[in-house]
């Protein structure tokens, strides 16, 4: 990942399109530019379709919904998955290890995990979105209702009547 602006030189563009080594500029909502390889950017279905539809590659892509901190982390994922091969067993194992470490780090900072999830959703980065949503689902899975409330800041506001209803539904089940 390189930070800068306008690094994708227009002259070399046609040639590089063939080899897939074009560089693409992504701009966060704070105006910070991130220059990434096309292979990395293509992890995002949103950007992929814009690139394939032609145009706008030189101008770069402004991402008004993504802040710099989140974009940097998203690009870290895209670089790993876009720029590296996953043909051999070893290569796939290395990617799986990357994913595991990547999500473990995010899991420690829930607010940031939500930001990355939202960015992955907005940019349609399937692998990353699956990774983060599964991580949140796993957090719900392993917990009692009380622990879930604590983990996600859910306030217990059920009335006695609600509790009665739930009990009734359970016995009917």
């Amino acid at each position, binding site marked *: 990942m390189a930070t800068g602006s306008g690094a994708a030189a227009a002259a070399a563009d046609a040639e590089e399109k063939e080899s897939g080594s074009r560089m693409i500029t992504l701009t966060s909502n704070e105006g910070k530019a991130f220059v990434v390889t096309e292979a990395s950017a293509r992890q995002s279905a949103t950007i992929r379709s814009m690139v394939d539809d032609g145009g706008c590659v030189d101008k770069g892509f402004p991402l008004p919904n993504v802040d710099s901190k989140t974009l940097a982390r998203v690009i870290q994922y895209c670089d790993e998955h876009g720029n590296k091969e996953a043909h051999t067993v070893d290569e796939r194992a290395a990617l799986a290890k990357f994913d595991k470490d990547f999500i473990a780090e995010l899991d420690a900072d829930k607010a940031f995990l939500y930001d990355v999830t939202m960015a992955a959703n907005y940019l349609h980065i399937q692998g990353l979105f699956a990774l983060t949503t599964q991580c949140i689902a796993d957090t*719900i899975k392993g917990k009692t209702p009380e622990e879930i409330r604590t983990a996600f800041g*859910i306030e217990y*506001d059920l009335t006695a009547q609600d509790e009665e209803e*739930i009990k009734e539904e359970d016995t009917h089940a």
Partner: protein
Amino acid sequence: MAAAAAAAREDELMSLPTDVLDIILARIPFDLLVRTCCLSRAWRRRWESVRYLDIRLGWGCRGAPSARDLWRCAAPIVGFRACVHARHFHHLPAWFPALASKGVRELAIECDEVRRGHTPSYWVIDQGLFSCAALAVLHLEDCDMPLAPPGFRGFPSLVSLTLRGVTLPAEGGGAQVEHLVAEAPLLAELRLDDVDVEELEDPTPPLYMWAVRAPRLRVLKMVTRLDIGCRIPEVPPLLEEAYIDIGNSFMSFHEIFRGIITVKKLWFNIHEFNEYPLEGISCKFDNLREAEDISFSSRDDPYEIEEDDFISSGINENSFSSLKYVSLSGITYSSNQLRFMKFLLSKTESLQSFAVTFLYIKSNREYVKACRVLRAFRRASASPQARFELRLWDKPTPRPPFFSCLPP
């Protein structure tokens, strides 16, 4: 109350966009998803609006979902895959109408094998199954298939049908599978794995014949010890992969192979046969041009034939001409098997790999002799660059993976 609801919406999960939260919630096992109703007032009915649920119940699940909970789910339910314990089998008649009304697309029911062989003998799946009209994938395992009610129109969207360890009714059972296949114009995968027909053990059982006519079939698996009356009268033109494991002289493999000569990848196992399999294949596959993988395996007892049989089988020069990968197992030092291997090596220029697993467990004289002969064949072969592998029986080439009711 409105204010309370608004305050409750502030929790971290509820503040995510609805579609994102739906996707997260759809990843939670169904019983835990239903339990989210007791988190707070805002969560009371939240789970009921999660669409595209793929409900999975493994053997490890203690409870089974109530039909009432299924009725409360948002439509459509994408998948319902259940390993059904004996104590939960009574749920099926209640599940099917709920699943049908939610437009379930993928349905897999695997029953507890423990009950098999007891009386009442097998488990007959409830007829309500046939009301799931939107099915694209149907997988039934270790149960009895019922007859459809009159007027059943088939599953028109069906793409994949797997019957594994399923017993069909003696009268009309085969015809029903024929009907299911015929009424599914998109059917691409058909697996009849250890399918049985009721009362086949009768001293003089009537054998009802039925046919598989699936013009878009790509994958065919047929595993059967007895002739269950199934035939393939017309060649599926798109067939890519076939897995054939047949035994007993009831069924003529000539007929089976006539039905699948377009196949590109073939896995073939045969046992207890009166005819010698390789002879039949070499005749029938004269038309084969695109085969990529042929694997013969004789698990039980390889059948010995006289040398003359093979010569007289009339092998066409072009048989197997585009084979790339060959794996043979259950091979012995018999002149006919060696002759067949020599034939493959000398005629198949496209060959990239040639693996032979001998029936011998450790190096014995026959094995050493066979290896020597094969290596000589190889030097004279049409494609000496091919990967060449000789194995012993205790280290065989891997079998194709089992197609599970609960895929990963």
